[in-house]
């Protein structure tokens, strides 16, 4: 197979869509976890909120694309306001436990609120978007759509990284008291970052539901959180280009496993093992540099 054929094959397009999806998800986590050093374990919960909002609206109410996506983004944002209201009062270990508890409440609801989410059976038959007469069931067209959104998200987040908001977030992570003494509103800045990060995760969730046409709670388990966390850590927290590179690298990395002669039941755990191993390796390798010592004034 020559290169052109390979790059336009269905498989390559599928991978490109995954990369675009995880670019949105990982870069938005990079805002809170990387820049703000807030150990947000509920990011995948926001992603789930977005995915379920789109799935339910498009199957039950047959809402059009723009409505679904707007509602998903807003609901995930609202979720972040709720989460931030509780978790951002806490610090360090408590913050991690709080966000973990929050994401567990969401997954317990996804599994048990059967009248709404259909539980572990998941929601099938989510239609692809439809507008301007373009056929988004063609993966090429869907790639173009998600590509545009991924690019817009990256531009938006880059602007945020270099904006005063990004600088305040960095300053709060480095030396909270000094930043607060200089008039930074700790709670407000972090809540805004949380809101933006979570809304974008909702956007990614919306595209995830559209792309797979089917969602169930297992897609939003803690292992997914570990994967997104691995992307941000491999790319270096707070580094914009690093996270883009890491997303491409880590989405493509487990793919050769597909071509080995492995029982498909082992595929999921092996991918998980690979990600967790890389996560540990990178943290081990960079343990003195990853989260820099707070500067002394």
């Amino acid at each position, binding site marked *: 197979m020559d290169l052109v054929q390979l790059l336009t094959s269905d498989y390559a397009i599928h991978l490109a869509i995954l990369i675009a999806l995880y670019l949105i998800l990982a870069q938005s986590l990079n805002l809170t976890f990387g820049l703000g*050093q807030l*150990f947000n374990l509920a990011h995948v919960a926001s992603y789930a909120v977005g995915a379920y909002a789109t799935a339910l609206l498009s199957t039950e109410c047959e809402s059009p694309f723009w409505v679904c996506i707007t509602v998903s983004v807003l609901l995930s944002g609202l979720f972040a306001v709720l989460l931030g209201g*509780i978790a951002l*009062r*806490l610090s*360090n*270990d*408590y913050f*991690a*436990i*709080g966000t*973990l*508890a*929050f994401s*567990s*409440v969401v997954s*317990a*609801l996804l*599994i*048990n609120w059967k009248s709404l989410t259909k539980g572990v059976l998941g929601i099938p038959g989510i239609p692809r978007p439809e507008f301007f007469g373009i056929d988004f069931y063609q993966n090429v067209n869907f790639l173009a759509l998600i590509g545009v959104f991924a690019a817009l998200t990256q531009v938006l987040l880059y602007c945020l990284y270099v904006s005063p908001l990004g600088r305040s977030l960095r300053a709060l992570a480095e030396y909270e008291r000094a930043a607060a003494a200089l008039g930074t509103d700790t709670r407000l800045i972090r809540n805004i970052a949380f809101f933006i990060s979570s809304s974008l995760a909702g956007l990614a969730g919306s595209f995830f539901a559209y792309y797979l046409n089917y969602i169930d709670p297992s897609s939003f*388990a*803690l*292992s997914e959180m*570990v994967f997104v*966390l691995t992307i941000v*850590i491999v790319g270096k927290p707070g580094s914009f280009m690093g996270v883009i590179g890491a997303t491409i690298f880590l989405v493509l990395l487990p793919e050769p496993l597909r071509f080995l002669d492995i029982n498909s*039941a*082992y595929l*999921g*755990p*092996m991918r*998980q*093992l690979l*990600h*967790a*191993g890389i*996560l*540990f390796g990178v*943290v*081990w390798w960079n*343990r*003195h540099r*990853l*989260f820099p*010592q707070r500067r002394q004034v």
Partner: protein
Amino acid sequence: MLSILPQLLVNSLITGSIYALASSGLALSYGLLRILNFAHGHIMMIGAYTFLFFHVQEEMSFLPAAIFSTACVVALGACALSAFILPFMRSSSLLPLITTIALGTILESLVSIFFGVNVRSFPSASASESIECGGVYITPLQIFIISSALVILGVLGFIVHKTSLGRKVRAIAENKPAAEGLGISSTFVMYTVFIISTILGAYAGILVGYETNIQPTMGGSYSIKAFAAMVLGGLGNIWGTIAGAFILGLVENLSIGLDFWGYSLPAGYKDAFAFLIILAVLLLRPQGLFGTVSRSS
């Protein structure tokens, strides 16, 4: 409705005993190391699966199987502490959180690969016949669970409060440099405490295997439940945590057992309750139910 109350109380005592065993180890190691060990539930899971391997698959009798699985878990605990926790303690408080999450994921995927993802349980022929006592049904196994938990927690209390190891643990928790200056080997104490905590966890895991069933993904939810007990009692406070574990068992059982104004909650929501408790306590009483407000530098 009130007629099932005694049964619910006994059930809460059983669940509470298992949670207490699981969370007291976590509280002990948190009190000393100030590291939240996300992999604690996964270590429980490993305890249960090594016992399954020796007792059920290799058909060893109870005692040798227990000895072999304890040896495995002790080795695992020592490796976990030396590779996944100690090297990262100095750099940033975030890093051990990440590495223990990675460790948990690694253990979970390894068990999924070697034992499969299906639910397993231990055969317990004689222990399954219930004894009726004043309208309350209880199996000999459950009596064993409760009494062994009380004995083990009593021994733990004796160790912490009356032995020289316990004094060293408390000295290091209070002021590490001063304790080291007086010739206490903090490395030795940390390894001992961490290994005790893994053994307690593994024992709780085996009890879970006898009382209900085990699967590779149980680790995450037991970690969170142990956190819930710890948050209830105040982080690092062992007696508070044990009380928290029994309260958690009580709330879980009452929440699904009783009906509220003719409306009863489905059993699936039991887990969600644990997580909601964490959030409520974090919000209202972050120092734990039994903690006092203190200012640390």
